């Protein structure tokens, strides 16, 4: 209970699902051989943390930010540029972290002070504008960011796949640098999610929820709402940038498509809504469902599309084409906002009852 900050999943099914997900993630290198499974598992870890940080904003303060990928991208690019420029050593990793995190926090502070004073709707629009400007900027400053190609880099010796830490004949499994990197990603993501759980269950988190429910009243009670919202924005940005760092370390690459594009922002929105806003646990569920769908549903859709085109059906092959999977997730997204505003977690907690406790701004 201590480790969960006194905020357990509060549903037997949910607890079971979470335990299964976490155990499966932790045991991926041994249970599911092959690079793809490990990649999927690492991506789930990174996105669970990223989505949880977004949940702090969307679910707990009720402000919609479209700049979350920007912070994610700042983290990714900071570590990539540092490792690319300074070579594969730990000093470069430290430099990347020491520049990326403060940069993200400062930018979040600036955006927050500028736009959180006014209505929540301004915040959404301004973050959208700033994020798109940043995206263009990153692709134009190609001397620094590598433009559309992005930056590939080498990891320090210890984290490389070629580094064998424990050889095969001891346990039957080879522990190499790649697996070590995976556990690094797993552990840091888990720590960040636990830290976020701590934040939302602190008095500070309660004030955030009060602001979400009734900003005017929270202000009347004497809380400085702009300060609280800006602080939450900075915290979320820090976690997002850290998730970006982990992502870049795992992929050994940072580029516009993997760390900055607007479609990642939409993915995050889908994950947080499907998982359940204002629960933090929803982030883990949402990220798992979404990324599994992204990786495995697409091949299923490919089969269906092929079958439809062989059967000579009109339109269906186009709609079922693997590249159109976002169409179906978009429909699912609308349906879940409408029918299950509390997402999977909310559903499980309330057993399908009408009494929803999620944010209903």
């Amino acid at each position, binding site marked *: 209970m201590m480790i969960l900050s006194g905020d357990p999943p509060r549903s037997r099914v949910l607890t079971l699902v979470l335990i299964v997900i976490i155990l499966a993630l932790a045991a991926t290198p041994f249970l599911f051989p092959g690079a793809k499974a490990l990649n999927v598992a690492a991506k789930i870890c990174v996105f669970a943390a990223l989505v949880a940080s977004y949940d702090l904003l*969307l679910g707990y303060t*009720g402000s*919609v930010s479209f700049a979350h990928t920007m912070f994610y991208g700042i983290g990714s690019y900071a570590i990539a540029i540092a490792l690319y420029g300074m070579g594969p050593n730990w000093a470069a990793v430290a430099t990347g972290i020491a520049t990326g995190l403060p940069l993200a926090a400062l930018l979040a502070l600036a955006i927050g002070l*500028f736009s959180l*004073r*006014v*209505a*929540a*709707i*301004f915040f*959404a*629009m*301004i973050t*959208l*504008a*700033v994020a*798109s*400007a940043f995206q*263009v*900027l990153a692709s*134009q400053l190609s001397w620094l960011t590598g433009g559309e190609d992005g930056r590939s880099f080498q990891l320090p010796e210890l984290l490389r796949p070629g580094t064998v830490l424990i050889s095969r004949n001891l346990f039957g499994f080879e522990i190499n640098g790649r697996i070590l990197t995976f556990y690094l990603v797993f552990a840091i993501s888990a720590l960040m999610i636990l830290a976020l759980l701590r934040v939302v269950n602190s008095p500070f988190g309660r004030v955030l929820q009060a602001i979400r429910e009734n900003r005017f009243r929270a202000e009347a009670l004497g809380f400085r709402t702009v300060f609280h919202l800006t602080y939450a924005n900075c915290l979320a940005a820090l976690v997002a940038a850290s998730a970006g760092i982990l992502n870049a370390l795992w992929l050994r690459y940072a580029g516009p498509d993997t760390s900055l594009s*607007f479609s990642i922002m*939409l993915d995050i*929105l889908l994950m947080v*809504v499907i998982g359940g806003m204002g629960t933090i646990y929803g982030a883990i569920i949402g990220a798992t469902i979404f990324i599994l769908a992204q990786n495995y549903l697409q091949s299923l859709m490919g089969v269906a599309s092929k079958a439809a085109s062989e059967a000579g059906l009109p*339109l269906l092959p*186009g*709609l079922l*084409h693997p*590249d*159109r999977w*976002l*169409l179906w*997730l*978009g*429909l699912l*997204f*609308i349906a879940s*906002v*409408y029918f299950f*505003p509390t997402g999977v977690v909310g559903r499980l907690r309330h057993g399908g009852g009408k009494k929803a406790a999620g*944010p*209903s*701004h």
Partner: protein
Amino acid sequence: MTDLAATDPLPKPKRDIAPVLLPIALALLTIPLIGSTSSWLTLTAASLAMGMMIFIMASGLTLVFGLMDVLNFGHGAFIAVGAYVATLVLAPFAASIQADSLWMNLAVLAPAALLSMAVSGALGLVVERVLILPVYGQHLKQILMTTGGLIVAEQTLYALWGPQIIPMPLPASLRGSFILGDVAIAKYRVLAMLIGLAVFIAIQLVLNRTKLGLLIRAGVENREMVEALGYRIRRLFLGVFMTGSALAGLGGVMWALYREQVHASMSDDLTVLIFIVVIIGGLGSIGGCFIGAILVAMVANYGGFLVPKLALVSNILLMVAILMWRPRGLYAVTSR
């Protein structure tokens, strides 16, 4: 309270002309910076044309927000749908588009634009009923629902037309420029300016000279009061929403012809631009939206000419500067 005799005219509303002077001052200021008068005139014409197109797309969004406090993040979808629908007419009649006769070109362009407006207007009806009606008065859900709508619309366009960029050539008679001395002004830009001005004047006339417009303006200022007087503001809002969607469709056709290509991703890029315009103008204000659109286009054109590197973030800088001056946009019409 001052006493007014019955015969006295009503006190005139205070005119606020500082925002109107802003684009004019900006244009005059850049003359010495650009140096040559001919390129300044070309750039100014370009910014006016671009501004008018952006205004057509943004006008619906600002009214919809002003009237019902609904923020439609999927507004860009109407733009893309309009552009795609226009290709349905323009592609089969490619021959008459390439014929060098203004009337023949317009005979194809006009129905294409009308069809686009009709389809995006009808789509507006569906979106309002299906996506926005269930989440009235809940900002967070509105943003989520309309963002979901944007994803679905964009993906459906890809599924129907394929992911490739569709070329949309300008009609033969609209290509090239009018040459006045050493100033060249593209013919299409003149057309865009004319249409934009016509739309602006039409909106202003409807808003200021008709009962419908009176109700809309009253609704923007105080919705509950209009409802209390017995008007069905929901229906009014539906009409405004459909008109705004249709205008976005028209803007989409114009923008696609301007760029000479159609792609579903245009909705993403333009959504950002339109939001900036609507914020700068002040949510709900048509006049502010008009000035904001021209300002954004001017900054993009002059900025692109003078400091190309800065052009990337110039819109943001403009927005920051305007909001520092007037935190609620050029004209703050809503009390929210």
